[in-house]
Every structure is written in structure tokens, then in C-alpha cells.
């Protein structure tokens, strides 16, 4: 069997197999389970890189399940040729998201080795962890709206269980139940939207529905769009449906917080992009109205996240609010791209949104891993109880300062570059938007300066005497992510030219997404 031919499905089924084989491997001890999970998340990462290379080299990759050949997506029924099979359709946008997800997933898995050493039931943790990875990768790779819902549920249900994993703490169980209820409500809305689209067009393949919407737009699909948007706004943690995020992300174990804040909410952003630009297409929708709705929501999100993050005393809660604010920037880019589609401003908005998505995944993944280190070493999440950590744990503190400054948009780190692109894109639409975005950035800077000033600089309280840098398996993922932040900041054209621009081209080019599947 040729591995490159099956690379698209391998990205999804590798973590799936790892998930269900972990309970058997863990019979041989915790070390074996650790290494097993490391191998499988690492393999997923390697396959994602290979998939990305294939997409960059030969365009959109189609993989059809149950067909005699991967590229055959259609069925011939009495001379009528149409796509009915379950298929994965991977363009540059999907490949970019898959790369980011498996990168953060790999580092979080390695980090979990030592971080979870005091917990019981680690094999269940690893199973759910790999299922979470499977769900996210499935959402971004699939070319079928019902499969997208199924993978969304796989992802969400493992996320609910993982948030409540430390079931002996009251906070985790409460956050898990809240996340479960609101997440199920959002999933139901998404399922209803899928049902409406299937009822109207009799198909579940994204390309086929997009083609039919172009040919004959029915008034019902706008109701489906509203349902879709509400569901994915909740999954993406955008205001006013961000409240579960504030409870759930701090309550989860830190390696899971890194995944939840780094990439799980990004799948919501991915789905919004995919629905707007591919499923519905910008031709049939009232771009100005929908774009302005997104922009207004984004502006509110940035302000709420930034201003409420400023008054938090809990480090992980502060990071969660920061995630809300940064999702606002990504939504701003999407909205600007909708309003000014196919102009300089629109392209810059998309580049900014996708680059900020990549940057925020790296930065927030790293910051949550560091918050986990602090929780692991100090046993507290309250900022006011910390102090002078830079003398006790220099490497961790340096990484946190880099990450905090980067996420606040301080040059020369990567967060500044993506925010600069977003400022300029939104200024071309309306200068007021850019002003609000810069003010929100100042709020973000304020909340990270508070942490840096209080926790890392200054004098250490008497209680923190024998604190050290964490063991290597926890430190190495953090350091690598910090190095990535600096590299992407100093050489921004390296990621933008190689992976972001192809993804933007893929988003803009709806016709090639359709023609890859349709006869």
C-alpha cells in the first residue's frame, strides 16, 4: 500500500487507533501508555506534515471512503452522476488547520507525561485526549456536513469529559456540566442546520450543496445559516456565547487547556470560514450585512475579553479571557474579508485572520502549558500569591514573558505581525475599527503586564522557597513553542508565504473546491 495515497485518512485514523489501543497498552504500566500516546500523536503530526506537502504540491486532495480508488467521489446511477459517498476533501486551509492541531496535540501529549503523574485513570485520560485530536482533525478534513457534525460531537464529548477529568474537585465537575449543556445546545442547532440543508437539497456533500445553492438558492438556507452561525459562535467562544469557555478552560488539566484554548475553539473559526466562503459562497449572500454582523460581534468580543481579563486574579482564568479577546481578532479578520471580498483589504483580512489563528494557537498553547507548570510546581493559580519567579525558574519565566508580549502585540514577536495586518485591513474598511482593535490590544498588554510584573518580577513571597524549573519533558515543548514565536516574529514571511497564502487562495477559490468533487 502506498502511504501517500492514503495520507488523508491516515491523519484521522492514526489517533483513533491510538485512542482505543491505549487501554490495552496501559496494562503494561503507565510508562508504556506514555510512550504509546507519544508515538501516536507524533505519527499524526508527521502525517499532517506529509498531507500538507501533498496539498501544496498537487492541489486539493480527495479521499473517498469505500470507493475502489481514493479520487472517485461520484456514483453513476442510471446515467445520473452525483457525489453521495463519505469523503475527505483537503485543501490548503484544511491542511493548515490539521498541521496546527497535530502540532499542539503532539506537544500537549509529551507535556502530559509528567504533568499527569499524580492523577489516577491516566489511560482514560489518554483515550479521551486522542479522541479529542481525532474529532478536531476530522472536522477540518471532512468534505461532508453530516460528518462534520459527527466529528464535532466526538470532539465535544471528549472535551466535556476532559474538562471534568479531575472529578474530585468541585470546580471541574461544575464547569464540565455547564460546558456539556451549552455545548449540546449548540450541537443541536448545528444538527438542525444540517437537517434543513439536507431537506432542501437532498445531499450532504459540501461541494454538491454549494453547487446547488449557487444554482437555486432557497430562502430556507438562510435560517440554516443563522443556526450554523449561532452553533459555531458558541464553539468558537465568541461573545456573547463565551461564558462556558471562561469556566471550562481553567478547570481542565493544563495540557487539555492548551488544546482547548489553542485549537478546539479554532475549529469553530474554521467551520465559520468554511461555511461562509465554501458552503454558501460569497456570491449568493448579502456580504455587507453578514460581514458587519461578524465585525460588530468581533469588536464586542475584543473589548469584553480584554477588559474583563484585566481584573482577574486567577492565572488560567485570565488566559481564558485572553483567548476570548484573540478570537475577536480572528472574527474581525473574517468579517473584514466578507465585507471587502477579493480586494486588498479583504485579502489582508483573511491573511491576518489565518496568521493570527496560527500564532494564537502557538502562543496560547504555550501560555497554558506554562500555567500548568506554575500550578504543578507552586500549587496555586492566584497571581497575587506568586512573585519573583524569574529567579527561581528562569527558562519558564522567559518563555512566559515572550508569549505574553507576543500575544499583546509587542514587536518583534509574531502576534504583532498578525495584529498589524488585521489593523491595516480593518482600517481600510473603517478607521474606527482599527482604533478599537488597538485599544483592545492595549488592554491585552495590560493584563499580561500585570502577570509579568506580579508573578515573575518583583520579590518572592516567603512561601515560595524551593521552586525549580520543571522536568525536561515538560520544558522542551514550551521552549520549542517559544522559539517558534520568535522565529515567526522575525521571519513572518516564512509562514505567510509558505502556508498562509495558499490557504487564503484556497478560501477565495470556491470553484476549484467544487470542481474537485463534482463530475
Amino acid at each position, binding site marked *: 500500500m502506498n502511504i501517500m495515497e492514503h495520507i488523508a485518512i491516515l491523519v484521522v485514523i492514526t489517533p483513533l487507533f491510538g485512542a482505543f489501543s491505549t487501554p490495552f497498552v496501559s496494562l503494561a504500566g503507565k510508562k508504556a501508555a506514555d510512550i504509546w500516546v507519544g508515538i501516536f500523536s507524533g505519527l499524526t503530526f508527521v502525517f499532517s506534515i506529509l498531507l500538507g506537502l501533498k496539498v501544496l504540491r498537487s492541489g486539493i486532495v480527495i479521499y473517498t471512503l469505500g470507493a475502489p480508488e481514493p479520487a472517485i467521489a461520484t456514483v453513476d446511477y442510471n446515467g445520473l452522476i452525483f457525489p453521495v459517498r463519505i469523503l475527505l476533501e483537503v485543501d490548503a486551509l484544511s491542511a493548515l488547520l490539521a498541521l496546527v492541531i497535530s502540532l499542539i496535540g503532539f506537544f500537549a501529549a509529551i507535556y502530559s507525561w509528567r504533568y499527569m503523574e499524580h492523577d489516577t485513570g491516566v489511560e482514560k485520560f489518554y483515550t479521551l485526549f486522542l479522541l479529542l485530536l481525532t474529532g478536531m482533525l476530522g472536522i477540518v478534513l471532512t468534505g461532508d456536513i453530516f460528518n462534520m457534525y459527527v466529528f464535532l460531537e466526538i470532539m465535544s464529548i471528549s472535551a466535556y469529559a476532559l474538562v471534568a477529568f479531575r472529578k474530585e474537585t468541585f470546580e471541574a465537575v*461544575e464547569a464540565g456540566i*455547564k460546558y456539556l*449543556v*451549552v455545548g449540546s*445546545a*449548540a450541537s443541536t442547532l448545528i444538527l438542525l442546520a444540517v437537517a434543513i440543508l439536507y431537506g432542501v437539497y437532498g445531499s450532504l456533500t459540501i461541494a454538491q450543496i454549494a453547487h446547488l445553492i449557487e444554482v437555486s*438558492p432557497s*430562502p430556507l438556507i*438562510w*435560517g440554516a*445559516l*443563522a443556526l450554523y*452561525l*449561532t452553533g459555531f*459562535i*458558541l464553539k468558537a467562544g465568541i461573545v*456573547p*456565547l463565551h*461564558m*462556558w469557555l*471562561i469556566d471550562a478552560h481553567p478547570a481542565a488539566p493544563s495540557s487539555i487547556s492548551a488544546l482547548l484554548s489553542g485549537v478546539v475553539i479554532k475549529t469553530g473559526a474554521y467551520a465559520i470560514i468554511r461555511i461562509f466562503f465554501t458552503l454558501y459562497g460569497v*456570491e*449568493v*449572500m*448579502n*456580504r455587507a*450585512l*453578514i460581514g458587519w*454582523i461578524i465585525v460588530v460581534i468581533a469588536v464586542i468580543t475584543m473589548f469584553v475579553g480584554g*477588559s*474583563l481579563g*484585566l*481584573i482577574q*486574579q486567577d492565572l488560567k482564568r485570565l488566559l481564558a479571557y485572553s483567548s476570548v479577546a484573540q478570537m475577536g481578532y480572528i472574527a474581525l479578520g473574517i468579517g473584514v474579508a466578507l465585507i471587502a471580498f477579493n480586494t*486588498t*483589504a479583504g485579502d*489582508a483580512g483573511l491573511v491576518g485572520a489565518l496568521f493570527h489563528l496560527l500564532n494564537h494557537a502557538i502562543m496560547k498553547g504555550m501560555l497554558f502549558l506554562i500555567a500548568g507548570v506554575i500550578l504543578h510546581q507552586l500549587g496555586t493559580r492566584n497571581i*497575587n500569591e506568586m*512573585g519573583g519567579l524569574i529567579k527561581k525558574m528562569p527558562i519558564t519565566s522567559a518563555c512566559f514573558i515572550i508569549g505574553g508580549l507576543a500575544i499583546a502585540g509587542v*514587536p*518583534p514577536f509574531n502576534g504583532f*505581525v498578525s495584529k*498589524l*495586518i488585521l489593523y*491595516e485591513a480593518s482600517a*481600510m474598511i473603517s478607521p474606527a475599527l482599527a482604533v478599537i482593535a488597538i485599544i483592545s490590544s492595549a488592554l491585552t498588554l*495590560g493584563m499580561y503586564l*500585570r*502577570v509579568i*510584573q*506580579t*508573578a515573575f518580577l*518583583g*520579590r518572592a513571597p516567603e512561601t515560595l522557597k524551593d521552586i525549580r524549573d520543571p522536568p525536561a519533558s515538560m520544558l522542551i515543548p514550551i521552549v520549542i513553542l517559544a522559539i517558534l514565536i520568535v522565529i515567526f*516574529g*522575525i*521571519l*513572518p*514571511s*516564512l509562514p505567510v508565504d509558505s502556508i498562509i497564502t495558499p490557504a487564503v487562495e484556497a478560501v477565495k477559490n470556491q470553484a476549484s473546491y467544487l470542481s474537485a468533487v463534482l463530475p
Partner: protein
Amino acid sequence: MVFGIETGFGYWDPLIWVVLFVLMFIGGYLIAKYAAQRATPFRADELESEIFLSGWGETVEKDLRFPSKHLYWGFRKALESAWYRSAVEEHSGILTTYIFWIVILLLILMLLIAFGGAM
């Protein structure tokens, strides 16, 4: 040029910032070193070394930590009654509030998109 990137209608070159940062760090370090050389050493036993802090009592060294709540206090004070009180109340953690917001957003989006979404 590998460094730098086109940003819509401009060009961003991080190299110049890196150089600037390095220069600033070197300058700051030199100033700090110079100040440390020139400053009079602290003599606790002498009367004139007592610190006069605008009429307040002398600050104890233990209290010199700078708690996080003091940063941006002006901003927070200004928005205390206008924004923070209601916003913190809204994040009550009560599940029905969360569901309420889902319904509200769904209604707004339904009204806006279902009637104005089509081109």
C-alpha cells in the same frame, strides 16, 4: 529579503526593531551600571539615610511587592460603575443565563440573516 512582510498597504520589517531593542537593552544596562557606580551606598546606621516619603511613614521592605490589582487602576476605576459591575454580574456562572444568551443571539441572527441574508 527574507525579513519583513507586505501588510496590505505597507511593509513591516522586524529587523530594525530587533536592532533597536538590542541597542535599548545595551543602553539601559550601561545606564544602570553607571548609576550603580555613582550612587551613594546605603548607610542604615546614619540618621540622614532615613527615607522621607512625602510625609508617610517609612515603607517596610516586605510591603514593597507590587500586587497585580494596582496596575491599570485608573482605567478600572473609571469603568467601575459603567461597565465592570454589570459585566461581572452577568458572568454569574448560572446555566440559565448561558442558555438565555444562546436564545437571544439565535433570535437576532435569525431576524437579521433570514430576512436580509440573501443577495
